[in-house]
């Protein structure tokens, strides 16, 4: 446990140190916003990957895999494929266009009053949605590792990130993010590889791939429940409220499952595609669509493309990102498999999000497991810090640039004030919404991004006839339908096994075509902007060509 604290402090300290070094380099306003646009493709790619690999990637994928099965493995595919669509359609043109933020792009491409404000409002909404779960993850992790109160982890990460962003801006953050990418890859890969070598293969194979449920070992099992849980005992089908306290299982007894989890045999659990449940083809395709198109619309990802020196460098950066993400995403599945074998008590406590943190000590008792657990904890902290920093940069940039603009000399101070203020609301929300499921907020952010900024960018970049009115109406329609569906799904508790329930939980399949359709139909009826030819030239003419 002390080891874990040391590792977390070391990584956090190193991040602060690099951030401070970045401050000395960050002198001009341009440094703060876009790192003077002179970051090399490798640095930029590591920074983008560092920023993107969030709590959802580091802890969430393995946690969902333990909870629902191998269908969670589609998530990394969607997360990475999102970057490929970004490369194919928007990376180079957006960089050439030369705006600081998405609201800048929206207003320059579609000159209309209100366009900037609408885009800025959506940026703040998506960033906020995404920032809250990062802070919550920090609170949960610090609690799991050290036993500290939940609010402490939230407060620590909120404070460090706000300081780092306010002082270093984008340039300091670029180096911090790049550093944190390598921390994360190391922290997830090394323990996974060493554990597999130590174990010499996967244990409990019947419960992983065969016709068995996870069961207590030959000497039984003791599960500590922090709160009272409604448990289903698969052997007898009995449902009982148990705890708080210790629950003893007889040798060979199947591990009970908490509310919201189905007891699955290894065979059902390990299929990426299934007849029903999370692995049903409809849900898999809807999830792929949301992640696929949502990535492009995440504001903290797009703002980073402006730090490339030119459009061609933006393309090269994105290709490197694809490689770096792929290297990371091989490993969450390993923790999912090991987690089902070694920490089946998580099915009873429902705390599957902590599986990555718990597997090393459970699979390799003694000091080696503790050292590896400390490494993993440090990586998890790097994950919250880097994603939260990127989100805060985009929040502060949007507030100080679009919502509450300042004259030239005041800009830097305004950016810093916005960074400090921008952290207060999400941090309070994270403290207040401890009970809300993390994946709900993340899913909403992706669905919102896919049904607003994704059509705006795709049509804005490639279709000259897009009109401001059509774009605004489409974004509003997409945002309203995505939000409405998720809210309706939460209220009605519709089962994801039905087609309607699946669409409510994962509305991208509905809201994205609707947003595109609205934009196209309304634009066809209106007249495109007058100087659209010049705008299109700015998007598509390569930099080295003097026109």
């Amino acid at each position, binding site marked *: 446990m002390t080891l874990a604290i040391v590792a977390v402090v070391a990584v956090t300290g190193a991040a602060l140190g690099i951030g401070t070094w970045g401050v000395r380099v960050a002198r001009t306003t341009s440094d703060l916003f876009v790192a003077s646009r002179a970051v090399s493709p490798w640095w930029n790619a590591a920074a983008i990957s560092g920023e993107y690999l969030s709590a959802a990637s580091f802890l969430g994928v393995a946690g969902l895999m333990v909870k629902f099965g*191998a269908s969670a*493995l*589609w998530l990394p*595919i969607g997360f*990475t*494929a999102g*970057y*490929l*669509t970004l*490369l*194919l*359609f928007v990376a*180079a043109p957006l960089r050439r266009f030369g705006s600081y933020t998405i609201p800048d792009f929206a207003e320059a491409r579609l000159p209309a009053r209100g366009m900037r404000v609408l885009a800025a409002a959506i940026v703040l909404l998506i960033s906020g949605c995404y920032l809250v779960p990062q802070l919550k993850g920090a609170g949960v992790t610090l609690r799991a590792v050290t036993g500290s109160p939940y609010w402490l982890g939230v407060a620590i990460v909120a404070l460090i990130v706000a300081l780092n962003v306010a002082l270093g801006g984008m340039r300091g953050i670029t180096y911090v993010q790049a550093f944190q990418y390598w921390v994360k890859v190391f922290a997830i890969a090394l323990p996974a590889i060493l554990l597999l070598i130590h174990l010499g*293969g*996967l244990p409990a*194979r019947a419960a992983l*791939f065969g016709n068995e449920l996870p069961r207590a070992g030959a000497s039984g099992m003791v599960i500590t429940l922090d709160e009272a849980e409604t448990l289903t005992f698969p052997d007898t089908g009995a449902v009982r409220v148990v705890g708080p306290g210790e629950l003893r299982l007889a040798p060979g007894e199947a591990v009970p499952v908490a509310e919201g989890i189905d007891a699955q045999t290894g*065979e059902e659990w*390990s*299929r*990426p*595609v299934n007849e029903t449940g999370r692995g049903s*083809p409809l849900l*898999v*395709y809807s999830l*792929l669509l949301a992640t696929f198109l949502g990535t492009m619309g995440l504001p903290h990802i797009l703002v980073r493309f402006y730090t490339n020196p030119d*459009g*061609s460098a933006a*393309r*090269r950066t*994105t*290709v490197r990102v*694809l*490689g770096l*993400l*792929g*290297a990371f*995403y*091989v490993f969450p*599945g390993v923790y999912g*498999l090991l987690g089902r074998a070694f920490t089946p008590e998580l099915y009873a406590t429902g705390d599957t999000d902590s599986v990555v943190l718990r597997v090393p000590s459970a699979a390799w008792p003694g000091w080696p497991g503790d050292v590896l657990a400390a490494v993993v904890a440090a990586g998890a902290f790097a994950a919250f810090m880097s994603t939260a920093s990127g989100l805060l940069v985009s929040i502060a940039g949007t507030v100080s640039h679009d919502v509450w603009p300042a004259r030239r000399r005041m800009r830097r101070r305004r950016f810093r004030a916005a960074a400090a203020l921008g952290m207060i609301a999400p941090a309070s929300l994270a403290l207040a919404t401890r009970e809300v499921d993390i994946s709900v907020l993340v899913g909403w952010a992706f669905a919102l991004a896919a049904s607003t900024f994704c059509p705006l960018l795709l049509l804005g970049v*490639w279709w000259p006839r897009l009109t401001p009115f059509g774009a605004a109406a489409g974004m509003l329609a997409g945002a309203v339908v995505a939000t409405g569906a998720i809210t309706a799904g939460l209220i009605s508790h519709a089962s994801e096994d039905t087609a309607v329930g699946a669409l409510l939980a994962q509305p991208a399949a509905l809201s994205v075509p609707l947003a595109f359709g609205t934009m196209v139909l309304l634009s066809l009826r209106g007249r495109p902007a007058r100087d659209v*030819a010049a705008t*299109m*030239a700015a998007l*598509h*003419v*390569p930099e*080295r*060509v003097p*026109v």
Partner: protein
Amino acid sequence: MSILDVYLRRLRREQLRLSLLSLVAFGGAIGALPLILYLLPGLHDVQLLGVPLPIWLVVVPPFPLFFAIGWLEQRRADALDAAFGEMLGDIEQ
């Protein structure tokens, strides 16, 4: 409409065609994967290093595929940009 506009429109079309082609390539491969696994449940009994084949198929091959398609697209797109630049250079001379 000037000759520049004509060339620029052609460049935009070519870039868009290249992007759509790449999208079809990787969308087809990744989009077919869930369907293949759904239609061939027997793949689950084939094991590699003790892990069922479907898990391998989902965890490993998509990522090199993304990288390869991205790399090819980037080279081709840069080449299209360069050709456009040369063409404009010829006109000016």
